[in-house]
């Protein structure tokens, strides 16, 4: 289309392509990994209530066992705070809800913008703190890959452009809005190929670990 502005692109073709790639990639990755199928465990089970064991692990891994709590307190709390702040900003900002509603067909109540602004700022600060930790903590520095850093950057961008658009900092509003949308689209495209997939993989991983140990009679 002629005369298409950045915002038009971000709201139209950009969004569509990003969503297509996102859907395609996420399903591809999940199916491609799971369809490798498991080597069946032939040993005699001590406990056969697999579903219970699996669901249990999904729940219990949400908090560390007491024995570990002290050693990983910072990551535990900051990890929770980061995700919570992120979800509050993403899921309870009125314009975002309208966006989701246009796709999902239903909506939910929103929170006042001051809370959104606060949580957005907190999320940004925490992610930067976690980035610093990743770059400086010996273990995390060693095990980090380009994926880890790029993923942080790709998630930081929507946060920063979103906050800037909200606070009317930087470029004109429609440009910031376009950049915000484009950064979200970048994240959607990056998503299936990166560690961001953990959002889809965590519960299955916990579940299978729960069943693995449940088979042996251990509550994992």
């Amino acid at each position, binding site marked *: 289309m002629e005369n298409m502005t950045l915002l038009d692109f971000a709201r139209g073709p950009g969004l569509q392509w990003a969503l297509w790639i996102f859907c395609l990639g996420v399903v591809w990755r999940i199916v491609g*990994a799971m369809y490798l*199928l498991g080597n069946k465990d032939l040993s005699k089970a001590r406990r056969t209530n697999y579903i219970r064991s699996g669901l249990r692990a999904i729940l219990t891994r949400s908090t560390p066992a007491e024995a570990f709590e002290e050693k990983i307190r910072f990551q535990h709390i900051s990890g929770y705070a980061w995700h919570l702040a992120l979800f509050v900003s993403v899921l309870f900002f009125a*314009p975002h809800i309208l966006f989701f509603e246009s796709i999902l067909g239903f909506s939910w109540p929103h929170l006042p913008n001051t809370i959104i602004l606060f949580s957005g700022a907190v999320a940004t600060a925490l992610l930067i703190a976690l980035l610093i930790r990743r770059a400086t903590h010996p273990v995390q520095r060693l095990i980090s890959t380009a994926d880890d850093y790029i993923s942080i950057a790709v998630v930081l961008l929507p946060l920063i452009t979103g906050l800037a658009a909200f606070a009317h900092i930087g470029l004109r*509003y429609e440009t910031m809005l376009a950049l915000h949308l484009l950064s979200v689209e970048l994240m959607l495209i990056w998503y299936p190929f990166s560690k961001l997939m953990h959002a889809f993989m965590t519960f299955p991983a916990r579940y299978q670990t729960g069943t693995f140990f449940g088979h042996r009679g251990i509550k994992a």
Partner: protein
Amino acid sequence: MRKDQNLGEYLRSQGVSRRGFLKFCSATASLMALPPSAVAQVAEALAAARRPSVIWLSFQECTGCTESLTRSHSPTVESLIFDAISLDYHHTLQAAAGHGAEAAREAAQEENKGEYILVVDGSIPVDNPAYSTIAGISNLDMLKDSAKDCFAIVSVGTCAAFGGLPGAAPNPTGAVAVSDIITDKPIINVSGCPPIPVVITGVLAHFLTFGTIPELDALGRPTAFFGQNIHDRCYRRPFYERGEFAETFDDEGARKGWCLYKLGCKGPITYNACATVKWNQGMGFPIQAGHGCIACSEPRFWDKGGFYDALSTGDWGTREALLGAAGAGAALGVASAIRARSRKKKAMAEEEA
């Protein structure tokens, strides 16, 4: 007003006192969104101003722009602006008709060569110029002819400025904006559907006062009026900040005058002066009346999704397309896994061997 008179002399001859002139200057400065400190400057310039010739061409338009202007404020200070210009051709307003009218236009063009201001409302069909003609002259030809010797062009309304409704998809007439045809003259876009009348007169007042082109934004609009977006100057902005939104047009929020973002208000991306200059003699503007802004002063606003779709929504395509993508993903996943498993089986076989 005689052609050899300047405006100061003309007003005095009409019995307007210096007080009245100063009042006129204050109102004109306010009209042009100039700071009150500029009144003295305006007064000096206006007193010496010469009466410019204005030729007004109407192409593919609905006459809404002219209506906006003429119905706005019955005799007001702005009307003086019109008294102060020589509107030599305006086929809706002029008394002359037929050949006489066209002759008047040609005469004015000849007489004021290089000095007259060309005002255009409406878009120009280029697919087939015969879609819109005046006196047998196609809009395209008339525009080219009249633009040739003008000082500057004022594109009044979104049609003339950006193509507007005739240019909306699927654009059956191939309508284009003035700026798509004329590229060698200064063009001032006074967009809006219709534009705020005061903004039209404000731009003319600027010519009258300073004889220059006002400062323009990237879309050719005077920054004095189009410099800030509706959202930033909207009196309902505090509701937005607090996250208080009307959900429907008749709910409690709507009654309390809450923000109309959720009802599709395009204020945040719309640059115009409605929120401050307002309409109907300052009585209000659409948002004040309870309806969201539809971005009528922005290019292609007709084609940017529904007026009632919130700004944050996008055109995400169809459910089928997304399901299709997911299906393709599943197929790729299965194919990928089958290939991977054959590698694994090969490794297994090698161990046995």
